[in-house]
């Protein structure tokens, strides 16, 4: 559906994207991860013809964006970073203008406004919108042309937790309708929840890519959820151990960052100290994969 071949771009002496090869399968929800300044936005801008690559090409459904120009973007919806519109015009007028560019029928406007929860504010000027509403309008405009491919760059920026969940649910719904979604985000937990595939880049280069399950298997450190009858005693027991990386407590459980092979030893220790263990659920974390691949925790924003 979407492919980049040997994509490179420099700004002055800084190489923003370096020989990047991506292949986004049809129907997938593809997470695009990387620390700040890793080249995510530059890559997405090259995919959507906002920036010309120095080398390489982007193919959408086999058509080169560099060769066919914006014609290759037919059937593609995109939201690049912050959603900006003509503030002095209403959301509907803004969408009408974009529909004229896409050749989309006007009745689609009502549909996308409804789908993004803005139907009752469609006649209001965009300048009266909150950042979250603008972001939802950004998603609405991306859906306007009934796209087969959605390219979303940080779509949950500026949204509150409820808004984030709504966008996450919407992405899930769109994916189930067969739309291929390419999404970049800093929110690793969110990407893990919604993506079937992911790629991690750093300093413009591909670090790793593949299906989510394959990526998570690469992780040496898993978060393990343990439900016990004495949470504080378990915490006192496990905290001093050097092979326990981190413990987060809740009412009746602990989230423990621990190597896979140490899990049986931890359970044995808890049971030997008369702590009843009700459940042990290993949860692989994309964050751990990300950190181990990038190699520095401090780069996460």
């Amino acid at each position, binding site marked *: 559906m979407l492919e980049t071949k040997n994509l490179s771009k420099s700004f002055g002496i800084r190489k923003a994207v370096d020989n990047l090869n991506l292949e986004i399968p049809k129907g997938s929800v593809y997470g695009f991860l990387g620390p700040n300044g890793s080249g995510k936005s530059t890559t997405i*801008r090259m995919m959507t*013809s906002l*920036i*010309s690559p120095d080398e390489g090409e982007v193919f959408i459904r086999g058509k080169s964006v560099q060769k066919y120009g914006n014609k290759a973007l037919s059937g*593609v919806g995109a939201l690049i970073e912050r959603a900006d519109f*003509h503030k002095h015009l209403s959301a509907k007028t803004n969408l009408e203008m*974009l529909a004229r560019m*896409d050749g989309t029928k006007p009745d689609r406007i009502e549909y996308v406004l409804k789908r993004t929860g803005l139907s009752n504010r469609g006649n209001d000027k965009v300048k009266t919108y909150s950042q979250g509403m603008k972001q939802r309008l950004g998603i609405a405009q991306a859906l306007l042309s009934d796209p087969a491919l959605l390219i979303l760059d940080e779509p949950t920026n500026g949204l509150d937790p409820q808004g984030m969940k709504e966008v996450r649910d919407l992405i899930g719904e769109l994916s189930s309708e067969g739309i291929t979604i390419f999404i970049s985000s800093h929110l690793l937990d969110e990407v893990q929840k919604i993506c079937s595939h992911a790629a991690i880049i750093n300093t413009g280069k591909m670090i790793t890519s593949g299906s989510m399950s394959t990526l998570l298997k690469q992780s040496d450190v898993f978060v393990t959820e343990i439900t016990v009858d004495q949470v504080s005693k378990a915490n006192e027991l496990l905290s001093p151990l050097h092979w326990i990386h981190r413990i987060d407590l809740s009412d009746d459980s602990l989230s423990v960052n621990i190597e896979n092979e140490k899990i049986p030893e931890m359970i044995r220790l808890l049971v030997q100290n008369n702590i009843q263990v009700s459940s042990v659920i290993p949860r692989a974390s994309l964050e751990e994969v990300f950190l181990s691949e990038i190699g520095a925790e401090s780069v996460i924003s």
Partner: protein
Amino acid sequence: MIGLIKNELLVITGRWRSYIGFVGISILMPLILWGFTYGSESIHEQYSRQLGGSFMVVGSIFNSFLATYIIMNALWIHIPFLVTLAASDAVAADGSNGIFRITLTRPVSRLKILTSKLLASYVYTAALLIFCAFWSLGVGSLVLGTGDLIVIDKGILILEQSQAWLRMALGFSLAILVMCMVATLCFMFSAMVNNGVGPIIGAMFLIIVGYLVISIPLDFFNKIEPYLFVTYFDVWMDAFKEPIPWNDIGKKLGILFLYSSMFYGIAAFVFNRKDIKT
């Protein structure tokens, strides 16, 4: 393309800056017409003095046609500034406001988008001058009345009322074409930057420097005068010559068209290669 132009006109009409020219004209023209109504004697005397050797002036030669002719002469240097107010924002504002991130990711070529913006700027320019004509000729006719138009240039030309209307229409049409060239100049700068003030300064700087060069009688300046676009800005005055010098008009418009094409070509070249990073 019509849909794209409609989009751009919606944007232009939604910006408060677009109305500065119309508001300015709406304030200035009544004042000028009021001034002409109550202070036209000196102009009448001046004209009568110039005509006195050859003609016997009976009644008033002052009417809306003469007032319009005088107004056009007086405002000719200032109108370009009003024209640049819309053209300067045409491309630059979309860049600085992040609108390009949404519009340039759609299946429409950049050239089409750019062309629609330029054509919308032309519509605005034409509307501004037609509005000026509405005040000076329309409202002016009600206030000052109509009659023959007497133009004193290198000779004396007296045009009957019916001819005066036609000449005024031709004059304003030529003025619109000249101002479209000014809009293209400003538009070119707008395609190069991401703020709306730079293009106004750039365009007005070139126009003012051009006017200075053609008004200073130095040999060197005289030599470069034919190559300056401002030299041909007075083409609208040809509408008030007898016979109408169609060849001269065609030549001047041709040169202005070449300049406009060059400015548009530069704008297209820059815009097509522009990386949208904002």
